[in-house]
């Protein structure tokens, strides 16, 4: 048995206590979140429109969410078994989003075709 070296127990006690990281890391993350938030606010302030606006919003949103998840919520230091159990299921919501996007396009077309207000 290869895993005989591991002291396998069913006890709920964690194997190590706590997440200890330098405070500098949190301050850096905090600062980056400020900059990214200011950047996404600037997108609105500069009145950028169209695909450029949407792309920038999504990029800044993704970076902010990633920083919060990885550093503040310590996901970067968790084992893959936990990270994937939490990060993969929301992909189902993305699929649902795709379905509803198609559906709402159909609804809009029906409204235009059959319920024109003019």
């Amino acid at each position, binding site marked *: 048995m290869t895993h005989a070296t*591991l*002291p*396998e127990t*069913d006890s*709920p*006690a*964690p*194997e*190590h*206590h*706590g*997440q*200890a*990281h330098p*405070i500098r890391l*949190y301050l850096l*993350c*905090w600062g980056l*979140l400020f900059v990214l*938030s200011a950047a*996404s*606010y600037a*997108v*609105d*302030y500069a*009145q950028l429109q169209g695909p450029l*606006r*949407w792309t920038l*919003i999504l990029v*800044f*949103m993704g970076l*902010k*969410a990633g920083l*919060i*998840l990885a*550093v*503040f*919520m310590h996901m970067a230091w*968790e*084992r*893959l*078994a*936990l990270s*994937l*159990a*939490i990060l993969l*299921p*929301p992909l189902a*919501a993305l699929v*649902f*989003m795709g379905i*509803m*996007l198609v*559906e*709402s*396009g159909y*609804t*809009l077309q029906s*409204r235009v075709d059959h319920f024109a*207000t003019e």
Partner: protein
Amino acid sequence: MTDVSSMRPGGLRGLAADWASDQRSFKTASWGKAMMWIFLLSDTFVFAIFLISYMSARSSTEAEWPNASEVFSLHLGGADLPLALIAIMTFVLISSSGTMAMAVNFAYARDRRRTAALIFATAAMGALFVGMQAFEWSKLIHEGVRPWGNPFGAEQFGATFFMITGFHGTHVSFGVIFLLIVGNKVRKGEFDSGRRSWLCREKGDYEAVEIMGLYWHFVDLVWVFIFAFFYLW
């Protein structure tokens, strides 16, 4: 205590080993932390479905969607600042996340005084956020925004706004209450007393602060998505 985690395989091998071990799958996370993550996952679906229904409403209506940049502008110093209050709220919530992260750090260093102070600072910023949210709601209600209609455009705007920000605000409010409870326990030194409780397994067990932090950061995380999709899109 020997560091058992270093003996475990990492990466995909570790993933397979953890899930195939016929025991608990989350080897280094306590039950408390794992269950908080599972709860947050379920909450992710709740907010995802709110945002998806908002997307459906917005992309299936013929009416013009109200311009959030104008609806949420604030008249400050003789000029209309687009999204001013929302931007301030965003910075307040991010700052509260920053203080929370540092509170977790000081908790593991068992620095009770600093931990309690940072948790209370987090709670104060959370309360400030809810206060500004309440101001925003009153302002919009005063301007005639209702769940069934509004003077700016598509009728669904009010319903999605009140639903999404209301649910988020509720999360923040409950977070503030729990922060006050945990902060007070830290201040009184309950985690150092050696008494077992539902938040503390043994003397010096400050994991409750980290678990509380997970919830708080999640509230901030959700706001990132609401800010992007509801206010900026």
